[in-house]
């Protein structure tokens, strides 16, 4: 198992009620596995979209991206800068 940190911002942060959650994932897990595992916890996590935009270690990443222990996986709601 590997521990990664899931980060939540803006509307996702409001939904989850926290900016950061430590999650254990199996070795070889991908971003998609992490999203599915979190949503599988039930409320409030099941309110997250099934395919949110994510950034792994501060770079946008595909859901097929494999995760490693210590990775920072940010759930990025639709952005609205400017």
């Amino acid at each position, binding site marked *: 198992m590997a521990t990664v940190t899931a980060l939540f911002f803006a509307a996702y942060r409001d939904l989850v009620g926290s900016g950061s959650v430590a999650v254990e994932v199996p070795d070889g897990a991908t971003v998609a596995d992490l999203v599915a595992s979190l949503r599988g916890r039930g409320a409030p996590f099941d309110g997250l979209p099934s395919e949110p935009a994510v950034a792994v270690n501060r770079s946008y*990443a595909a859901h097929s991206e494999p995760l490693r222990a210590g990775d920072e996986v940010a759930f990025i709601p639709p*952005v*609205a800068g400017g």
Partner: protein
Amino acid sequence: MSVHAALTVDPVEPAAVLGCVGGSGDGAVILFLGTVRDHADGRPVLGIRYDAYEAMASDVLREIAGEAADRWGVDDLTVIHRTGELSVGEVSVAIAVSSPHRAEAYDASRFVIEEIKKRLPVWKKERYADGQDSWVQGTTPEPVPRS
């Protein structure tokens, strides 16, 4: 060429941003300011709170600024994005560009603001006159596979 990009919680000083660009070889210096307007879809707005994924947003803003400067070969480019609580009329983003000719300066500036809206991890929550607030509907960033 100097390219500068930063997020700040402090009020943006347009003159200071403008002062970061321009030289004797430039025939064009432009400044774009994004400001907080007092209405959204007909609803009176008192202010906006900007939240950012700061560590990533600094990198993305630098990336956008660098891409714009390279693509249009402008001389200097500075972009500053505000975070925190802003009132109506305050500057949320400032983009200053200088180049030998105006076309490149306008194009680079336009590119920067459009890319900010597409991929900068920043969010805004509008505060309305009726006491309610809500996150502004944004744009889903494209996942960029890492090489």
